């Protein structure tokens, strides 16, 4: 009898295979049950609309895991409206003045229409409009004519910038700079007239609707022309005519200044630093990179003090470090900035400069100082962004962050003007106190 190889035992193999099959089947079944209970995106609860909210500016916000291609709402009057707005991951925010009726509304949703209630429109910055028709000086007085629609004059801030850049302010019932004598607002037909009995010379006037800073740019700016020639040469606005020229005090024709609307200059056009900061903090994501909204305060200040070339160089530096925000806060981010600034070890670079011939040493040291100061100032910039991060987490209010950012921006400007190490160190010490002051305001909501 020949020897035979041990026969293959199909029963053992089959048992093993069937066991594997049953185990795999059980795994798929348990995964499917987990998803059905809402552990993933295919479940009913994750597809439902959450937290629909409607306010008296006509804005509507809600969350939904899967964005709707069109956001359509059935209004109380029975009309359907497709809303204008944007999705930010899973949250939809409409523009203001989209849902103006009060009462029950229904959001059309393939998963099931969602009912919600709106209070009705009270005020919306989107509907408000402001236009300055003219601003003239007569002797020491100032007269400006402007129109305001869908807004109240009690919320208007009047700012007058003097030749020395100082800004005088007036807001009815709130505050008034002492240098403005008897400022008042009166209604004149469809327009308003703003008058000041005595105001300094060389003024630019800005009128802004304060609740709308950062929302739809409801402000306008105009240079106030000197016009002592009399009512027959009133020019545009007050006479109702739109003339191109008026006469200056010596009788020569001069062009009547036209207003610059806020929509053109955006956040960068606000006269006050605080308003510019508040505006930028209120921007939607797609607005933030617009040139007029991006212009850093430090670079803006250089336009006047150091010239356009220095300002452009400054802006280039700010743009170069934008990629560093992708790095986590801490040493990695600073390392990124140092790389962008081409700054290695300060000690080592200083040693290399000092080893150069005297003719080259000066410019080497100067270049090193420029790079080092830019990295030091970035640390102040970084604190501003940390403050904004905490605001987005709900740890800080917008006003706390505005106040802090204004302090950091002023510190950067003062840093640029500092003449010694002692002055610069004092500014860094102040920044530490300001940072501690901000962190004392942090509230972590549970």
């Amino acid at each position, binding site marked *: 009898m020949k020897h035979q190889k041990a026969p293959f035992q199909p029963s053992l193999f089959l048992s093993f295979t069937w066991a594997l099959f049953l185990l795999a089947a059980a795994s798929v079944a348990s995964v499917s049950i987990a998803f059905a209970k809402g552990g993933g995106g*295919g479940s009913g609860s994750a597809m439902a609309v959450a937290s629909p909210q409607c306010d008296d500016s006509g804005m509507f916000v809600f969350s939904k895991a899967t964005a709707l291609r069109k956001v359509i709402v059935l209004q109380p009057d029975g009309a359907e409206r497709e809303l204008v707005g944007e999705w930010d991951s899973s949250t939809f925010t409409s523009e203001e003045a989209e849902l103006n009726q009060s009462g029950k509304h229904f959001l059309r949703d393939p998963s099931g229409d969602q009912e919600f209630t709106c209070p009705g429109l009270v005020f919306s910055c989107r509907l408000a409009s402001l236009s300055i028709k003219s601003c003239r000086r007569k002797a020491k007085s100032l007269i400006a004519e402007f129109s305001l629609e869908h807004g109240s004059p009690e919320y208007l801030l009047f700012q007058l910038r003097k030749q020395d850049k100082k800004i005088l302010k007036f807001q009815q019932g709130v505050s008034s700079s002492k240098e403005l004598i008897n400022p008042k607002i009166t209604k004149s037909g469809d327009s308003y007239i703003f008058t000041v009995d005595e105001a300094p010379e060389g003024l630019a006037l800005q009128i802004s609707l304060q609740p709308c800073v950062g929302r739809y740019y409801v402000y306008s700016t105009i240079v106030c022309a000197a016009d002592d020639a009399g009512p027959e040469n009133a020019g545009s606005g007050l006479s109702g005519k739109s003339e191109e020229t008026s006469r200056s005090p010596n009788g020569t024709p001069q062009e009547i200044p036209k207003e610059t609307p806020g929509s053109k200059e955006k956040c960068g056009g606000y006269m006050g630093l605080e308003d510019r900061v508040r505006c930028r903090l209120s921007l939607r994501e797609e607005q933030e990179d617009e040139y007029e909204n991006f212009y850093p305060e430090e670079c803006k200040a250089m336009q006047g003090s150091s010239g356009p070339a220095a300002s452009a160089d400054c802006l280039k530096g700010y743009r170069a470090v934008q990629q560093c925000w992708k790095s986590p806060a801490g040493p990695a981010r600073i390392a990124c900035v140092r790389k962008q600034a081409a700054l290695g070890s300060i000690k080592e670079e200083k040693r290399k400069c000092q080893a150069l011939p005297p003719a080259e040493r000066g410019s080497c040291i100067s270049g090193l100082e420029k790079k080092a100061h830019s990295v030091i100032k970035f640390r102040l910039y970084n604190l*501003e*962004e940390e403050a904004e991060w905490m605001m987005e987490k709900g740890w800080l209010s917008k006003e706390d962050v505005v106040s802090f950012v204004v302090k950091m921006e002023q510190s950067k400007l003062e840093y640029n003007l500092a003449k010694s190490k002692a002055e610069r160190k004092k500014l*860094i010490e102040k920044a530490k106190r300001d940072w501690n002051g901000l962190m004392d305001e942090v509230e972590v909501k549970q």
Partner: protein
Amino acid sequence: MRALIAPPVIALIILAIIVSGCATQFPSQQGMEGQGRQQSQSDGSMGTETARSPDQVREAGLQDLDIAMAELDELE
């Protein structure tokens, strides 16, 4: 024998295809959790959120300013 072996093996292969199909369908939603959030910042920059406490944020900011002081000492 082939008739006895084939069904469970084929079933396993089919199950493997189904399970791999489920795995590719869901992670884009599950994977959003715990990833760094892109946040918008006032100068058009984007930041990455990490899990930090207010005390950690305060301390990090103060340390950063201390380093700035040291850099000024090295420079001048």
